[in-house]
């Protein structure tokens, strides 16, 4: 079967072995375990599933997760474009260092990020102590969740926008300027439309990552049911109560959301490629 799929004239060996191993490995490590969620849900009746995912506490956790992820991704969209622009277009001392630093949220284990952010934003913390007198409670509030989700999503927008900016032709900007456009007009009418697909892709990636995030959030969130509880935490709570069906129900909704996002990101990439070729 696999042998027949091989390109007819390829002289290179090892397709059967490589392909067989790849498919076997993926099936065992990824597909089989993931299908467990779907089959587990299938044993639960629709009414039961609906009762789980529409209970007030679960709905509140979805609102928290989706809302905070959206705000985090939005903040990253603005500062991500700014950072990418500054890193690509301007020369300044420490530029390479700043560029490497952007990846830190990827490299830093989420649990470490969680306790570190809590230390900085709690009321005795370096930043928290200045927010407290202003009546702003950063840690153990929805704001804390947004801070954590902004932290972990930071690299996505920067790293998707950066390559597009690097390949942007200066001639376009020169043409706009010679036709009388101001710098702001050039930015808004020429540069931004080219960046748009990459910005949206970065936004969607940051949003998707934030939606499933657990480690960096639970320390700073306070985890009050109905107030500062995220959906991934509620999955763990249900598991600890041996409510497997409940945990699976919440997880299934999260999985569906991330698949829809994945589909959206793939279409965005396709759109952006067409955009660049046009």
């Amino acid at each position, binding site marked *: 079967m696999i042998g027949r799929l091989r390109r007819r004239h390829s002289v290179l060996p090892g397709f059967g072995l490589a392909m067989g191993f790849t498919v076997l490995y993926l099936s065992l490590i990824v597909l089989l375990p993931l299908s467990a969620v779907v089959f587990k849900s299938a044993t639960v009746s629709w009414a039961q599933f609906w009762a789980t995912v529409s209970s007030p506490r679960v709905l509140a956790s979805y609102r928290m997760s989706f809302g905070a992820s959206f705000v985090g991704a939005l903040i990253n969209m603005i500062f991500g474009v700014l950072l990418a622009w500054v890193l690509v277009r301007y020369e300044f001392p420490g530029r390479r260092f700043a560029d490497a630093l952007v990846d830190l949220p990827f490299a830093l284990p989420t649990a470490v990020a969680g306790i570190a952010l809590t230390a900085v934003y709690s009321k005795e913390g370096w930043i928290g102590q200045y927010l407290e007198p202003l009546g702003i409670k950063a840690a153990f509030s929805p704001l804390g969740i947004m801070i954590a989700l902004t932290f972990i999503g930071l690299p996505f927008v920067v790293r998707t926008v950066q390559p597009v900016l690097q390949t942007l032709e200066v001639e376009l900007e020169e043409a706009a300027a010679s036709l009388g456009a101001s710098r702001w007009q050039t930015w808004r009418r020429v540069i931004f439309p080219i960046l748009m697909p990459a910005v949206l892709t970065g936004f969607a990636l940051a949003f998707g990552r934030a939606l499933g995030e*657990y480690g960096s959030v639970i320390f700073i969130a306070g985890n009050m049911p109905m107030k500062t509880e995220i959906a991934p935490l509620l999955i763990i709570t249900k598991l600890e109560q041996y409510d*497997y069906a409940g945990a699976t129900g919440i997880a299934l909704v999260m999985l569906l959301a991330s698949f829809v996002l994945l589909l959206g990101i793939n279409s965005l990439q396709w759109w952006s490629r067409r955009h660049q070729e046009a």
Partner: protein
Amino acid sequence: MSQGAIVRIGALDVRATSEPRIIRWLLITVALAFLILFVCLPVVAVFVQALGKGFGAYFGAVVEPDAWAAIRLTLLTAAIAVPLNLVFGLAAAWAVAKFEFPGKTALVTLIDLPFSVSPVVSGLIYVLLFGAQGWLGGWLAGHDVKILFAVPGLVLATLFVTVPFVAREVIPLMQAQGTEEEEAAMVLGARGWQTFSRVTLRNVKWGVLYGVILCNARAMGEFGAVSVVSGHIRGQTNTLPLHVEILYNEYNFVAAFAAASLLAMLALVTLTAKALVEWWSPEVGHLEARGGRAAEIRTVAT
């Protein structure tokens, strides 16, 4: 006269495609302030908190038996998961990059899938498989095999979350190379394995290294997925990130941040190694942030 025109065009050029000096510095300041406030400060805080009660308390927390057990378990998990995903990544890249077959896009999307799944869900799937109420739970209990709340469960969950790293770095590199060099080697009489190790592997070695660095960082730092399958048995099923959580929840902050500082150092070493590979080999890099690898690979393939 003509010289004046050139100078004027040159001056216009600079003004037209850049911003006034003051705007430039303003933008740089805001961007760097954001980076320092959001990214630098937390990492500095880890080390400051860890050393808050002096070096003695710090080293005491690091060499404490439970911390050692956590470090050993973390190293063991990574030592199993990283090589397996390296072999998988090379096999997948060879199949995807060097051959044409229907369903390639679906395969590449599938390889990337674990990145779209919440870490908690990545752990949950193994509980559903191997847990007491799970598919294989009864059989495993009958044969006295322990997967969940034991080392095999930790390894499986880590494997799942780190599957894509090596493959997604190596596939585009192998694809960009084409197949001519390998075909030449085969024509000259090299055997399949020789061709792979002497030609292909040599050409993608920096990409492989890059993938391994990122895979290792995630394997050692993973929290959500292993938290679900671990059972948190001190000295037995606690990896270093889980150890951090337990100490923190016990209000043992110096010890928690001391353990966290080891992981922060791992992150800094990872970033340095990553920057070195990018500097050494410019075609490698910044891939983990790109979504939609499938779309990218699809366009290369067609």
